[in-house]
């Protein structure tokens, strides 16, 4: 009865004129901010906290939630069109989205991204609504040992991120790990590889590396190849229309990744970025034509795009049902709750049922808005590609610089951006793929810290990883994901020759 009551009151708030208006404002701001490389949901919500002071609690939080998932939705656009990830969670989107745009199929790529985002987001909300209380226990089942095992599993993705040369992928991954160690070590408080520079104490910001290795390096390549006639296809947007074949290829990834992405999103600390990488690699492992991945594969775009949006819905599980922030963005949202005088906690659902349900129901509406906002806009947005090359290049650099500067208001980060741009350019010249670098960088810090936390807790005893069932299962799956594909290929070849 209580739940039904809560739902109906939540519906009233979410479906009221103001409710719908604020969802719309939220998702609109979110998509636009998501599209601008470097500006992410954290900045947006942080800035909105003082603005929303004095607003109605429900409306303010509905709007902020809209900014969050709107940004993840919109972040794919610049990943696809410019190879500049709009936000952290859409790096993997560029692996196949950008090649697709280069082949003159930008319209199609954006349409796939929008539909998959919608499906991932919506399935995520349904799961959030029906499973939140039950999943709360899953979210807290993960201790340091489990996180280490999960990070190891995600790391296995490096094997599928190579474009042929495994040793080059490994070199790239090791570089990423090395950069991840820069900064104050969490467990001892000792600065590592900071060269006495206070700007490096907090380590290097993810987006500095993401935009450097991807966007700036790509811009450098564009400049070098400016007289190359074979690049002219980039000026074509292509049809938005998806064929039956496309839908067939999207169906599998969409259904699998909305579930997997959601579950990863539920885990505090994992989030959209890791979900999208796992979405990408697991689809590559399952694909009939894995060789198409990285060259504009439909499944390679659908996988991560579904997963990251589903993960965003998942991230609301620990926040709403436990009062625990699962990611940087939800931590800032937790701050927003506090400013509004609401303590999100295990009792939120019973004590603030209207708020709980209003947010969830508004998320459905928000996702529908996002789809109808994004699809018709595609022809216009993708016209970005028609901008004359010199201007486009300047704009990309302009947005990267602004985005990075607003992260910390620190000019030093701009030098770092340039530095990683050069590194990314050099890596491109010698054909070392940047994706393993970024993956290792994302996982590196959390993996190392979880390992050391786990070992501190167990007094240095490695058995902690096998005594805990979830940790052990994850380790076994990691091992299998490494061993099975080669074995499989071996037997396939044997059968074929027999």
């Amino acid at each position, binding site marked *: 009865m209580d739940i039904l009551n809560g739902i109906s009151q939540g519906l009233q708030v979410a479906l009221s004129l103001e409710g719908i208006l604020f969802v719309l404002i939220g998702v609109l701001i979110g998509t*636009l*901010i998501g599209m*601008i490389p470097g500006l992410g949901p*954290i*900045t*947006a919500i*942080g*800035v909105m*906290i*003082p*603005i929303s*002071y004095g607003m109605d609690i429900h409306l303010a939080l509905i709007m902020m939630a809209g900014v969050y998932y709107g940004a993840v939705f919109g972040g794919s656009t610049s990943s696809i069109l410019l190879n500049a990830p709009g936000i952290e969670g859409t790096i993997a989107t560029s692996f196949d989205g950008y090649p697709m745009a280069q082949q003159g199929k930008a319209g199609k790529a954006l349409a796939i991204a929008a539909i998959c985002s919608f499906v991932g987001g919506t399935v995520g909300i349904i799961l959030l609504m029906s499973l939140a209380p039950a999943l709360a226990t899953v*979210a*807290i*089942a*993960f*201790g*340091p*040992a489990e996180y280490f095992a999960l990070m190891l599993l995600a790391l296995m993705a490096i094997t599928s991120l190579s474009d042929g040369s495994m040793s080059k992928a490994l070199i790239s991954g090791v570089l990423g790990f090395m950069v991840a160690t820069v900064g*104050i070590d*969490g*467990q*001892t*408080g000792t600065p590592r590889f900071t060269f006495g520079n*206070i*700007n490096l*104490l*907090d380590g290097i910001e993810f987006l500095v590396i993401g935009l450097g290795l991807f966007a700036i390096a790509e811009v450098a390549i564009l400049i070098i190849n400016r007289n190359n006639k074979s690049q002219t296809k980039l000026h074509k947007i292509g049809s938005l229309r998806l064929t039956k074949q496309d839908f067939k290829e999207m169906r599998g990834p969409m259904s699998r990744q909305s579930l997997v992405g959601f579950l990863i999103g539920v885990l*505090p*600390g994992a989030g959209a970025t890791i979900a999208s990488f796992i979405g990408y690699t697991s689809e590559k492992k399952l694909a009939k034509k894995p060789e198409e991945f990285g060259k504009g594969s439909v499944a390679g775009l659908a996988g991560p795009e579904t997963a990251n949006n589903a993960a965003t819905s998942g991230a609301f599980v*620990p926040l709403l049902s*436990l*009062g*625990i*922030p699962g*990611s940087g963005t*939800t*931590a*800032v949202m937790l*701050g*927003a709750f506090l400013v509004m005088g609401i*303590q999100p*906690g*295990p*009792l*939120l659902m019973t004590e603030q049922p209207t708020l709980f349900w209003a947010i969830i129901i508004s998320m459905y509406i928000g996702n529908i808005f996002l789809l109808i906002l994004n699809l018709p806009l595609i022809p*216009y947005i993708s*016209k970005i590609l028609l901008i004359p090359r010199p201007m486009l290049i300047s704009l990309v650099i302009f*947005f990267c610089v602004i985005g990075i500067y*607003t992260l*910390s*208001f*620190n000019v030093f980060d701009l030098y770092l951006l340039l530095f990683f741009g050069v590194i990314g350019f050099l890596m491109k010249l010698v054909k070392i793929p940047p994706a393993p670098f970024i993956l290792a960088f994302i996982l590196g810090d*959390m993996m190392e*810290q979880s390992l*050391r*936390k786990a070992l*501190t*807790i167990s*007094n240095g005893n490695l058995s902690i990883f096998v005594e805990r069932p979830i940790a052990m299962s994850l380790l076994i799956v990691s091992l299998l994901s490494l061993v099975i594909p080669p074995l499989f290929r071996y037997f396939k070849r044997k059968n074929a020759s027999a």
Partner: protein
Amino acid sequence: MKKNLFLIAISLTILLILGACSDSSSGTTDGEWTPEKSIEIVAPSGAGGGWDTTARMAAKVFDEEGIIDQNIGVVNKTGGGGAVGWAYIANYDGDPYHLFVASPPIIDVPLSGQSEYDHTDFTPIANIIADYGAFVVKADAKWDTLPELFDDLKEDPSSITVIGSSSPGSMDHLQFVRFAKAYGVDVKDIKYVSEQDGGELTALLNGSVDVFSTGVAETVEQVRAGNVKVLAVTSEERLQGDVFSDFPTAKEQGIDETFVNWRGFFGPPNMDEEARKYYENAFKELSDNDAWKEIRAQYGWDEMFMGSEEFAKFLDEQLDVTKELLDELGLTE
């Protein structure tokens, strides 16, 4: 259309940057020195944290209640647990238009060698609020009091893990060590893990760690849900408020120690005496203001006003206590 889109994008970006600054109005107040241009308050952390909130709320009340008749903008300088922001302020030697908000890390961070500047380099203006720490265990844990926990810790330090959000040698770690030391526990053997991704409560609830050292406000909802219990709070006397007043102090359990998470404001090095006085009075007025009282209640902050002189003395005392602890832990540079 594409032009429009870019215009929207660009204006949005500019709006965002401008959003970080705020407010308006002008004029003068009586007194020896009054500000003649806009004032910048630096929060040496990202948006949404404790420093940021304190600075923004103070700026808001200063403006809305007409305590300071100049624009006040809050600027975030993130990095190094405050070190980046402090280095920035140190550049404004004697400039009375740059203030910053600070709390215990301005003592701990320089002591562990991570900042070139410490509190003595700046001009303390006033302290305005206080927060307190709490030691939390799972609801079904075997300990019901802090001494019970410390007895077990004395017996077998390897069996108990403490978790907190700050890095070793900073707040959450130090407050626990401080009380353990007062009870006679060998603090070098305490196992502390630092969790900076927001997973502290998770780790406590799933039994990965045994004790969570944190701020009082963070615990209330979990206590109400019956998931955890608070062994002790670090304040001198019991706190006010619904759930808060149920938390025992360490003092009433026979451990004579307290810890205050104070929050105050500083000016740059060598700030002019007249300007310092002006700000000191302004913060006093803020502290007594009803709008500020409301904000304090909303965030669960306690009143703790200290004028410049008293604040400076308090900081020196804190430095001595903290240095002794860090020396014992082997964490000083």
